[in-house]
């Protein structure tokens, strides 16, 4: 059975993050929060725009890394969850199916309407996103156009999914398995492109 992306999106978009009596949402082996997207965007944009150009790349790298670690740990929690077992696992026949399924869940949960468009197993992946909340950063700039690509979260999480697929056994400490891949954004809706494009490649040893 091939991955049925639309069914996964329809089913997984109904999963709700409900807090316990302590106001916490323990789920998928992590503590989940459900905050306004403009909070995350505003912090990212202001941080990046507040530093000198020579430092900007380092700040952007740390924003991507934040998503990379988040995606690694939460991604593992997702693909080992009862929700995944119920909806996605029956469709999975290969590691590549897991990746396609993970991006369907990624879409269902509102991170990005993103899909793999090219995959060389174990080596390289290209992801395109028709929509993602980070693209809304453009609204803070004149002409609704950001001066650069700013899809840090999509970039980091996409690389994390490749870590989980091809980076070896999951390591909860992140000492092994994490950062075996890295991503770069080559197109961005926020800067006027028709989609976001993210190229994920194996990191140098």
């Amino acid at each position, binding site marked *: 059975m091939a991955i049925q992306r639309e069914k996964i*999106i*329809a089913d997984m*978009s*109904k999963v*709700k*993050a409900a*807090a316990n*009596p*302590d*106001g*916490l*949402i323990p789920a*998928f082996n*992590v*503590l*989940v*929060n*459900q*905050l*306004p*997207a*403009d*909070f*995350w965007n*505003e*912090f990212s944009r*202001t*941080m990046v725009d*507040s*530093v*000198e150009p020579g*430092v900007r790349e380092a*700040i952007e790298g*740390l*924003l991507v*890394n*934040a*998503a990379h*670690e*988040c995606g690694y*740990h*939460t991604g593992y*929690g997702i693909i080992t969850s009862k929700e995944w077992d119920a909806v996605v696992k029956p469709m999975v026949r290969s590691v590549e199916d897991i990746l396609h399924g993970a991006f369907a869940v990624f*879409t*269902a*949960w*509102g*991170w*990005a*309407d993103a899909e793999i468009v090219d995959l060389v197993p174990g080596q390289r992946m290209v992801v395109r996103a028709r*929509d993602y*909340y980070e693209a*809304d950063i453009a609204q803070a700039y004149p002409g609704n156009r950001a001066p650069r690509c700013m899809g840090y979260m999509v970039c980091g999480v996409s690389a994390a999914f490749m870590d989980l697929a091809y980076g070896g056994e999951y390591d909860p400490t992140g000492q092994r398995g994490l950062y075996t891949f890295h991503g770069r954004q080559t197109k961005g809706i926020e800067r006027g492109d028709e989609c976001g494009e993210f190229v994920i490649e194996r990191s140098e040893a």
Partner: protein
Amino acid sequence: MENLILEHAFDAKRNRHYLNGHLVVMHCHHYASLFTQLALDARELVDGTRILQESAEDSFRCMLVEYFTRHQIHGVAERIDIGCKLYGAFGLGLLEVPSNESEGGEAVVRHSHLDEGWIRKWGTRQEAVNFITCGYVAALFAAAYDRPPKSFTVTETQSIVRGADRSVFQARTRQE
């Protein structure tokens, strides 16, 4: 006290989730901790903790004010109560406001996404980390008292991440 009304909506065309009309997104304690770490690490280059706090205040204040307006919540006590409940609905923890007046007050957090997440990830720390809640408390006080943004300065004076059994936040009218 009022029940908190939460209206979830999913825009199937754009695959986006809304809570009470505001675009929301799920993230984990790793993400929140690493954003906070970035804000702290970048201090020599940029006032990252202020940016984190103010980004939180701006975003949460907008949501709170809209809620109070839409549901005709006019009393300060009712507004504070709703604000505490919304804090929990976000998954940020258990917030109480034992004392408040128009010039400031105190907020207590007995369970904290930021602190408990940080401890899970890295262990305890000598310095407070919950700048997002500082922003939330500033937003809540301003919205409760119909004050403009940035009306309150909020300082975390006791922290779960430092080993305390609860975090305490002091809000004071900002002196410019």
